[in-house]
């Protein structure tokens, strides 16, 4: 029972070693195929890393135990409106984390201002957020990396490091003129690469005055006792007849916010990678067919010696997949070194403002790339393998 299986594999091992060891003799064609597949994988990962990085920047910003409250019907903070009275009601709701420092809740304003975007210095929409002091507790990955925090009530801002990098005029100690107001940049902050790094922060009260908003806000951000407390919190707000608000978990909110850009990039990226994959399959087919036809006599000899069709075909597949794996590995590394961490800023269509982020070639993405490469190798090797298995022995032996 076991014997035929062992036999099959030992035949495969011999045939495969034979095939692989002769790759150097066909190095031109083999390199072209591997190179082609490597290119496909590099591009596949490169485009997907844009969408991945964008989504990651927003994902890092969200935690499941944080809720964001906006006016009912509003899908972004930009279009939301909450009166001071409503904001107070929301801050009193059950489920919010409360410590000695007070409730972990921040009523916020969100506006966009035009700043020159590097390198062309054309105007771009940069988010300016007015926050209360609890905002620093709620978003606990905020770190001041230069200068200090703004002081409540003063015309001071702090800028995210992403914003400071991409837009002109946010250097430490520089003056930021918005309408008839002038703010001083007193600090720069990081947020583990997350969304807040794209923003400029100031005191909510200062922003209310500057924008003549009276005592009104656009959103309330609350850190809850636990992720499970969300339901209680949301139910309490829904049950309050004085409020008409939408409560959404911060992670869901940011996931939704990244949808358009993510779909755009991955949609285009998948089409490109799909087409290229087809091209690479042709390349691999070409290589493997010439590999098989170049070894016609050797394969026929193996068959004459009693090797069966299966192991011979499998050895051709192995060779093809080996080339694909080598190419895919190269492509993956290339993509990693070329794209991972590449910093960029783009328009988030949904919030109508700029988001700075880094391309991310994650291990999961690399694995996807390798699987894709092996798939190409598999398809490229299949038909040539069948041809090798079906080759008439006598005719093959006569080949020059």
């Amino acid at each position, binding site marked *: 029972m076991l014997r035929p299986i062992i036999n099959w594999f030992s035949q495969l091992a011999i045939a495969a070693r034979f095939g692989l060891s002769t790759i150097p003799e066909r190095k031109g064609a083999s390199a072209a195929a591997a190179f082609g597949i490597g290119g496909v994988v590099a591009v596949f990962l490169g485009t997907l890393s844009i969408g991945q990085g964008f989504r990651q920047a927003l994902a890092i910003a969200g935690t499941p135990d944080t809720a964001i409250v906006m006016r009912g019907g509003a*899908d*972004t903070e930009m*279009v939301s409106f909450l009166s001071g009275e409503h904001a107070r009601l929301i801050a009193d709701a059950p489920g919010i984390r409360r410590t000695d420092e007070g409730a972990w809740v921040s009523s916020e304003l969100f506006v966009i201002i035009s700043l020159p975007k590097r390198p062309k210095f054309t105007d771009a929409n940069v988010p300016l957020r007015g926050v209360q002091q609890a905002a620093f507790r709620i978003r606990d990955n905020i770190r001041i990396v230069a200068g200090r925090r703004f002081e409540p009530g003063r015309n001071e801002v702090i800028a995210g490091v992403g914003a400071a990098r991409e837009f002109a005029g946010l250097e430490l100690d520089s003056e930021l003129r918005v309408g*008839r107001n002038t703010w001083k940049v007193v600090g720069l902050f990081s947020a583990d690469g997350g969304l807040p790094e794209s923003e400029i922060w100031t005191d909510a009260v200062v922003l209310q005055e500057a924008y003549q908003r009276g005592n009104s806000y656009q959103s309330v951000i609350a850190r809850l006792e636990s992720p499970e407390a969300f339901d209680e919190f949301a139910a309490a707000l829904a049950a309050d007849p004085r409020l008409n608000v939408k409560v959404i978990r911060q992670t869901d909110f940011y996931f939704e916010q990244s949808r358009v850009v993510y779909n755009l990039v991955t*949609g*285009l990226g998948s089409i490109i990678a799909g087409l290229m994959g087809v091209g690479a399959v042709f390349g691999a087919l070409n290589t493997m067919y010439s590999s098989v036809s170049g070894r016609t006599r050797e394969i026929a000899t193996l068959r004459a010696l009693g090797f069966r069709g299966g192991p011979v075909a499998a050895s051709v597949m192995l060779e093809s997949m080996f080339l694909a794996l080598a190419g895919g590995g190269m492509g993956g590394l290339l993509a990693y070194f070329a794209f991972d961490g590449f910093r*960029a800023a783009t*328009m988030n269509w949904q919030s*109508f403002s700029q988001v700075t982020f880094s391309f991310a070639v994650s291990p999961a993405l690399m694995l996807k790339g390798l699987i894709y490469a092996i798939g190409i190798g598999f398809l490229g090797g299949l038909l040539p393998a069948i041809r090798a298995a079906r080759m008439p022995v006598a005719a093959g032996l006569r080949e020059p």
Partner: protein
Amino acid sequence: MKYAPLVLSNLRRKRLRTALTLLSITVAFILFGYLAAIRVGLGAGVQVAGADRLFVRHRVSIAQPLPISYLDRIKRVPGVRAAIHQSWFGGIYQEAKNFFPQMAVDPEPFLEMYPEFILPEEQKLAWLRTRNGAIVGRSTANRFGFKVGDHIPLQATIWRRQDGGVMWDFEIVGIYDGADRGTDTSQFFFWYEYLEEGRAFGKGLVGWYVVKVDNPEQAAEVAKLIDDEFLNSSDEVKAETERAFISGWVNQIGDIGLIMRAILTAVFFTILLVAGNTIAQSVRERTQELGVLKALGFTNRQVLFLVFAESCMLSCLGGFLGLGIALLLISAGDPTGGALPVFYVPARDIVYGACISVGLGLVTGFFPALRAMRLEIAESLRQA
């Protein structure tokens, strides 16, 4: 032409390889088509129709509204021929993912400002007398199957109604086409007065102004005059040409467009390299036969021509096939489900593509052809 059978039989001799090479060239040119369409879609190639139009927005940001009283003041600025206002509505049609831009305008001056939106006369008249009437561009109409006479409910994200509701009803009274393929026909326009009367707050505010100048060459000067007109008011403005505004927009989308294009270009040439290598290889393998041809009395030039004919035939066939398929696929719509306002291959890029496919044939054929021409008969016949 009499060599055509010879060229064809050379191509036929390893049919599989010929077919595979042909297909990979085809794929490369399909990619090329997408490259061109993506560039247009992301705005880099947008040909702005109105060089005489200025875009006037709040200096702080485009999201800050401006008072409607600015309209008359802008019209009085020297060099201004006409001015209109637009306001962003931002409504949701059924679901958030069905996004298309909706703008409140004054219909008559609006249509005069944008001659590139082509609306049948009777639909225009219908719009002028229908208070909740709206016109929609062809691409959005096709996307959702809107027809004249349909009632479209939009859920407001910003403009709550006076009665507290958020649903606004619009009647489609017209569907406009673009004057050329580069015209964005994804937008939906309706009466500003309908919005103004119905909304609960924000009365007397508009989103931005669009200005037509008398002389496009003085656009920059007029923009400066408009900026100065509102200097030191509570709502300062920034006026710039429509072209500058769009190029700023492209810069906002930023590196992503650039990178996708760079990647596609790299891929395109990689595929061509691999295909070219195959063509060259197939000629190399036939060294002996070329020697035979020469022995039969073919001149050096004829051999050169034969090799070139073969490589060019392959690349042109693949190239044209690829461009054709790309045109077909791209005309079926963009792959992102409406995120790109326009998606088509400009005529210029089709010509480029055709030139590249001929160029590919010449380049890949060059070294093999040169070698074939210089081949010594005796030498080549020995190479068995």
